[in-house]
């Protein structure tokens, strides 16, 4: 089984190109995969790429690739008219020859460079070197007029998507996502800063839930049941759920610790939660040698579901603005209590990982089937052992409960987050992607 190590995979992809190019036909999905792998690296090395921001970029990348492919000789049907205000892709010139790999290369280069324009010097250095390498490979033995036409078309599709993306409310991230000013909601039930990082004294992206959504109508579409009413009464449901967090931390098994760390997916240190599910999908698509249509279909639906999940989840987070376990437990139960994981700097309810994992699982179940067993090697390069799952739904449930083991969520945020994710994911699975 292949180790999911990005740089190794990139190298493998290049060696594949070398062979394929001689035959004059680089499979476009190889181009797509290569750019996605680079994007997974850039996500962990670009300062604004918190999970909501990552989900947005994955969505635009995948939609750009999907639309570029759907415009040609494929089984895919455009998503224009199905996603919120997505314009039609530019039309190809009738009777003219195009090369799908060259189109994909131009599309992905343009959109990735745009979405990650704020990455550091090494990211730019890598993008330049990477692009030149792929460009050389895909254009070998392709007629120059076809290359030029294909590149022009690929860029035009990407530019259409970029223009659309600029108006969604999430295009500009300032101060690494933390507003310079913010008024905390008064009262013990509400979120307060949970660490002493100065930048994080205001919560992450408080307006993200107002962003334009993709497949679902808007961020408030999949409303959550409210969390248990805040209380410090020992007989209250709220207290009991907080006590459960304490008790679980006290008795964590090695397996539970491993689960918490496996799904931790910290921003800036990993591919983030949406990147984790992209990684799962890519591992499976690679093992199945999936063609471009299947690849584009799966990654578009998945990315759309996750981006919508973060919008819906954030809508709920700032609607309820609930206090984190670390704050409540220290104040009410044990001043010295510490969770296993670092508490993310934004309100508790619902659990983002739960919402987006359930949405992702719904999409992948649709694509690969119920009870699809798989091994996830996403964290191997960070020293995490692969984990085996019997189904996508089972993986999503484990991702959700990992936040309870980690001490950063109460049970209600997980269970209701999973339910919200299933509601949101259904909009992605309902998309008509094939002609």
């Amino acid at each position, binding site marked *: 089984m292949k180790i999911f190590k990005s740089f190794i995979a990139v190298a493998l992809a290049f060696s594949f190109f070398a062979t394929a190019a001689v035959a004059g036909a680089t499979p476009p999905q190889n181009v797509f995969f290569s750019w996605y792998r680079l994007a997974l690296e850039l996500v962990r090395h670009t300062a604004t790429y918190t999970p909501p921001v990552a989900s947005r970029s994955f969505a635009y990348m995948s939609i750009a690739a999907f639309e570029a492919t759907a415009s040609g000789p494929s089984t895919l049907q455009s998503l224009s008219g199905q996603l919120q205000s997505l314009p039609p892709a530019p039309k190809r010139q009738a009777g003219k020859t195009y090369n799908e790999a060259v189109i994909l290369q131009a599309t992905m280069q343009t959109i990735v460079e745009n979405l990650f324009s704020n990455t550091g010097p*090494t990211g730019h250095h890598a993008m330049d070197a990477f692009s030149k390498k792929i460009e050389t490979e895909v254009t070998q033995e392709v007629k120059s007029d076809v290359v030029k036409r294909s590149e022009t078309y690929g860029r035009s599709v990407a530019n259409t998507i970029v223009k659309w993306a600029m108006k969604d409310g999430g295009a500009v991230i300032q101060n690494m996502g933390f507003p310079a000013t913010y008024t905390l909601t008064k009262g013990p039930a509400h979120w307060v800063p949970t660490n002493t990082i100065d930048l994080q004294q205001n919560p992450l992206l408080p307006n993200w839930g107002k962003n334009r959504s993709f497949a679902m109508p808007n961020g408030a579409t999949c409303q959550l049941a409210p969390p248990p009413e805040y209380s410090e009464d020992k007989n209250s449901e709220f207290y009991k759920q907080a006590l459960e967090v304490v008790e679980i931390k006290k008795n964590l098994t090695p397996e539970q610790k491993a689960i918490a760390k496996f799904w931790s997916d910290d921003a800036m240190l990993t591919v983030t939660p949406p990147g984790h599910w992209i990684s799962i999908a890519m591992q499976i698509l690679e093992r199945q040698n999936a063609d471009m249509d299947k690849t584009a279909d799966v990654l578009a639906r998945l990315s759309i579901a996750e981006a919508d999940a973060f919008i819906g989840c954030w809508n709920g987070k700032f609607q309820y603005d609930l206090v984190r376990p670390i704050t409540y437990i220290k104040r009410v139960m044990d001043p010295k209590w510490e969770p296993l994981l670092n508490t993310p700097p934004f309100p508790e309810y619902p659990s983002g990982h739960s919402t987006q994992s359930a949405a992702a699982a719904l999409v992948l179940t649709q694509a690969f089937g119920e009870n699809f067993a798989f091994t996830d090697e996403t964290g191997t390069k960070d020293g995490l052992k692969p984990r085996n799952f019997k189904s996508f739904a089972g993986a999503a449930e484990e991702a959700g409960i990992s936040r309870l083991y980690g001490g950063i969520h109460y049970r209600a945020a997980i269970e209701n987050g999973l339910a919200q994710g299933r509601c949101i994911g259904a909009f992605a699975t309902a998309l008509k992607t094939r002609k």
Partner: protein
Amino acid sequence: MRNFILASLLLSSAAVAAEPTPTIPTFAEETKTAGINSTYKGEWVYMVGGGVATFDCNGDGFADMLLSGGTKKAKFYRNTSPQGGKLKFKAETSGLELDKVIGTYPLDIDSDGIMDLVLLRIGENIVMRGLGNCKFERANEAWAFDGGDAWSTSFAAIWEKGSTWPTLAIGNYIDRAQEISPWGSCTDNWLHRPANKKFAPPLALKPSFCALSMLFTDWNKSGTPSLRVSNDREYYEGGQEQLWHIDAGRPPALYTEAEGWKPLKIWGMGIASTDLDGDGYPEYFLTSMADHKLQTLAAAPAATFKDIAFAKGVTVHRPTTGTDLRPSTGWHAQFEDVNNDGLQDLFVAKGNVDKMPDFAAKDPNNLLLQGADGKFTDVASQAGVASTFTSRGAAVVDFNNDGLLDLVVVNRNDKAQLWRNTSTNLGHWLQLKLQQPTVNRDGIGSWIEVKQGDKIMRREITSGGGHASGENGWWHFGLGVSTQTQVRVVWPDGTAGEWQNVFDDKFYILERDKPAKLWLLK
């Protein structure tokens, strides 16, 4: 001719106690008039580094300096400043004028009483033997030093117990050949241990996580310094900050969670240390992007540190002046008492990595004064040192031997800057130099203790840390008001010298087993 004019002036100056509102020192930039014209230049592989070494290479008691040049040749400047006067330097050919120099640290490697230098480079690192009168020659072959071929970015040195030759730790960055996917390509750091008055082949410090600063420091007062390594999380996978056991005769070993070490993952770029709270244990300031860290020992003897940056007001996560309020990027950091009030202050060099739009492009350096309550306030702008060039390495050093600390800062793709401390209302001071008879002559690994009444200020004498920059010369203490002052040295072998009375506003040589010797300008 130097003018010895200041001691009496300073004695009569308004002495400053540890007041709630610290006295803000004033600085005047004298880069041009001092004759400094040096730029640290270069693109991708020079995005980190750009350091300065300050040291006395001609025995006149004044700090000379070497400035890294990146793609350009490093520049050596002999200090010709008059005591207490305007700063003056003369560029000279010293043998140190090499290209691809990222960082530079002074260290008397062969203990001959003449300063040597370690040059961290893109490619081969080079040790330069001091020949006297500020001339140097390559000594890699003579000292069996394997300079390797890497992107070397950090340095620290110590004499291990019983050793007559130093151990050098050199931190390396990413594999510069990995252009397409450099992430996860951190190359091995090296430990150059002694072997028969030369260096043994370097030992790889595995795992290595792209070290941008290293420091041998006796964090637990055990008598055996450990190696702190600050790593850049931008490039490592599965990495974190590190603390190594470096015990003589034993292989290096990382401190573990079982020993109390807690994982910390930051864009580590520089280490500064000092005993801020007077408990005898050093605190560590770690530069990064956005929030910086100030760590204090939480539960000795466990190697557990807690972050007190927020409480002390030193997160310095964004510019405190100007209109560009995007998050900051910190590099060299150094604790010194710049207003001579007896409280350690903190200088932090700031500068965007390279056109990163999420971080301040005009990122002024910080000069953080410590108040009597232990909290810090940035006064860089009022003091006149809030440069918005893209700063990297630096040194806070008394260049004109007037007891007031001056400042030199290396800027990437721009001129280095030099400031003279022109304050006239600061407190008293003391400057000390250590001397051992044969081995480790500068007493690296010692602790200097300065006592005023019940208060004891402690300073660990280290070689390394900061960002690509090192100092070796007079060790400065601010004294505040004039009182009876005593000093002693706890030497690297743990032997504590006698307390000795000293006068304020003087220079002393503290030679082992001898009375403190007053140093006067020749």
